[in-house]
């Protein structure tokens, strides 16, 4: 009998890349057309899983950004500002449908350009992106009901800058509400993951979005700076690191420019001894290893009650041993590639710090490819509040485990950070959940779940994790100018 052993080293199940067609060269998307950057400057984007060159992408200069802002201004005044909401909605619905229809193509491209597992880009990023357009399309002609008693108008030209961790989903989070509320946009995707935004530009052409309503300028920090500093931008929205967010806030402050910031986090993920343990283990794993931990709301600090700590950590390690790190295109991959060499360097540096500070490191045995950027899932135990790995955002697959004795101590430790984006709580006791949810300083509290997202659910942080919300009715207010809405 020739029975091979069935084990968990599943045979490779590679998603086909035939569905995507990557051009050698991409231009900027300005005024409805792809154009070269001034001086034909370009930069390369690579596949972080293989370091293979994917394409050259135009690098927008200050002059190019200026052209894009001009196009957006013109589109705002010519088409978009006065277009009835009903009609704006139509465009957004069309975009949503196109994203659904071409979802696989987008998902594969997202995985190629960013390194995330295809199961995530396919089952999470793209469905979320389409859902955001669909959700906000419905608001476009109902804004009066979102702001009862207030007069709302669009800002005008909105500058938006997004990170590399969820390129398409972030594009949708930014573009959909901005367009639904009647703004035009100059959008800058992250320099390591520009390709899906450029594919989105094709979709925008296909749905006949009026030229200039969305302009996409690719480039790195200097391009972003040019957008932030442009005097004819009426509002800025940024998702990214707290460091860059603060620079943008400085730039916007003196001009009193409306701004939304969705920045970093160091979320506490709290597990009580009365939790549904096996599901909590899953939640903790999803909380930190989803998207290689490149998640601003990652549950990077596990606070586990001392009475179950040993048992819980044992279960956690066993579960982490099962994570399959490898080719992001393999449908059986759980943890993909680190997004860039630079990010890999940052993660490795902070992990070194963790070791030197005396925390105990655990990494499952997994063979990492030589080519590409990889980091094994990592658990630090014996972490103390004063350790840098308990304080600083690592933005990688690295979990710091601390223990607590009482609920009060859990809250105190959870809140003891300048960040305030998210938190997780696991307990089967309802009143304790509500007590914790009340006291945790975080914009999102996941109770008996983690890393859930929905266009109808507002997302955003307290304290240094930023301000303004994305999603839900509350998220709309970031993109409208409102009167006082009362008497004075």
């Amino acid at each position: 009998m020739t029975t091979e052993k069935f084990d968990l080293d599943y045979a490779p199940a590679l998603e086909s890349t035939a569905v995507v067609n990557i051009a050698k060269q991409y231009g900027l998307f300005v005024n409805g057309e792809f154009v070269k950057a001034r001086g034909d400057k370009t930069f390369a984007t690579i596949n972080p899983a293989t370091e293979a060159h994917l394409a050259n992408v135009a690098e927008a200069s200050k002059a190019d950004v200026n052209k894009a802002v001009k196009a957006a201004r013109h589109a705002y005044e010519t088409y978009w500002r006065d277009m009835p909401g009903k009609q704006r909605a139509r465009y957004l619905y069309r975009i949503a449908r196109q994203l659904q229809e071409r979802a696989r193509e987008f998902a594969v491209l997202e995985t190629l350009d960013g390194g995330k597992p295809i199961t995530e880009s396919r089952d999470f990023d793209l469905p979320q992106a389409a859902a955001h357009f669909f959700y906000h399309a419905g608001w476009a002609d109902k804004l009066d009901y979102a702001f009862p008693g207030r007069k709302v108008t669009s800002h005008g030209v909105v500058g938006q800058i997004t990170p590399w961790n969820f390129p398409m989903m972030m594009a949708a989070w930014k573009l959909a509400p901005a367009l639904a509320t009647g703004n035009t946009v100059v959008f800058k995707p992250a320099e390591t993951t520009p390709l899906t935004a450029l594919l989105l530009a094709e979709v925008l052409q296909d749905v006949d979005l009026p030229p200039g309503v969305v302009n996409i300028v690719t480039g790195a920090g200097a391009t972003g700076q040019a957008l932030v500093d442009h005097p004819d931008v009426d509002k800025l929205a940024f998702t990214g690191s707290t460091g860059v967010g603060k620079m943008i806030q400085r730039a916007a402050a003196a001009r009193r420019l409306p701004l939304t910031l969705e920045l970093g986090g160091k979320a506490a993920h709290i597990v009580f001894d009365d939790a549904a343990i096996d599901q909590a283990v899953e939640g903790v794993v999803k909380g930190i290893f989803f998207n290689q931990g490149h998640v601003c709301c990652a549950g990077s600090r596990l606070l586990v009650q001392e009475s179950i700590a040993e048992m819980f950590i044992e279960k956690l390690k066993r579960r982490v041993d099962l994570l399959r790190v490898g080719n992001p295109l393999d449908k059986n991959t759980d943890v993909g590639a680190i997004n860039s060499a630079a990010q890999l360097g940052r993660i490795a540096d902070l992990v070194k710090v963790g070791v030197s500070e005396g925390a105990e490191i655990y990494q499952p045995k997994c063979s990492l490819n030589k080519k590409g950027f990889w980091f094994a899932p990592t658990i630090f135990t014996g972490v103390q509040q004063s350790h840098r790995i308990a304080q600083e955002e690592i933005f990688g697959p690295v979990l710091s485990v601390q223990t607590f004795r009482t609920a009060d101590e859990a809250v105190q430790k959870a809140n003891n950070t300048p960040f305030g984006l998210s938190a997780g709580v696991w307990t089967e006791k309802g009143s304790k959940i509500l007590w914790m949810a009340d006291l945790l300083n975080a914009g999102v509290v996941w109770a008996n779940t983690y890393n859930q997202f929905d266009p109808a659910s507002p997302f955003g942080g307290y304290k240094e994790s930023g301000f303004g919300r994305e999603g839900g009715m509350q998220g709309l207010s970031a993109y409208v100018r409102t009167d006082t809405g009362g008497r004075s």
Partner: protein
Amino acid sequence: MNEHLPVDKTFKLFIGGAFPRSESGRTFAVRDAKGALLANASQASRKDLREAVRAARGAQESWAGRTAYNRGQILYRAAEMMEARRPEFVSVLRQIGVTPKAASKQVDQAIDRWVWYAGWADKTHHILGTVNPVAGPYFNFTFPEPTGVVGVMAPDEPALLGLVSRLAAVIVSGNTAVAVVEGPASLAAITLAEVLATSDLPGGVVNLLTGDKNELLPWMMGHLDINAVDLTGAPKDLDPTILEEAAVNVKRTVWGDSTAESPYAIADFLEMKTVWHPIGK
């Protein structure tokens, strides 16, 4: 010669429920239109600001932790106490140059503001909060929470109504405030402090510093334990680069309406918290 030589009031700062003088020992003269001395008000220093922030932080969690009903009652109590001292407020406003009719009207409006905002304490959740229909087996809701400690640049005009409008909007949700008042408005502010001190408002919820806004604003913007700054009454000759300091801890900055009577003025000092929980058995 007067039979009774009036006992003039010393105008001090209001920090943590107490009325200290500035640690700097500095004062500034407030004079009426004819130049007669009305008071030597305390001129707050950056160290007084630091103390006020400490008091505000200390009071914030328990203030926010009170029931909305209770906070509403305390704001209403402030209106009651103002009403009781109505003539004094009119007189202070007249001293600093407000016409009798306008002074009377302004006091009425200020009292009315407390009452109006008091009623919002247990209603902002209704109009700003939501239950969100997410596409999955989760109960998901969003509700407002106070931002924390709020620095307030009080409007110069109208001296009493402006301050009351901004303060009420800030504190009704559970924020605590450190307000800076400048010039003649200081007299109205400290008179208001005396009302607040006797209105069941816990010490530290409102702290009032009289002094020089341009001197104190940079310290306020740079303070790491202030979560938001109300710039509605920011000095007209403000150096805008001072505002960049807001970025040190990602402060929320608010430019509002000095006499706003709006739930959205409350919303400017709120955070939205969203909670997810699975629905299962």
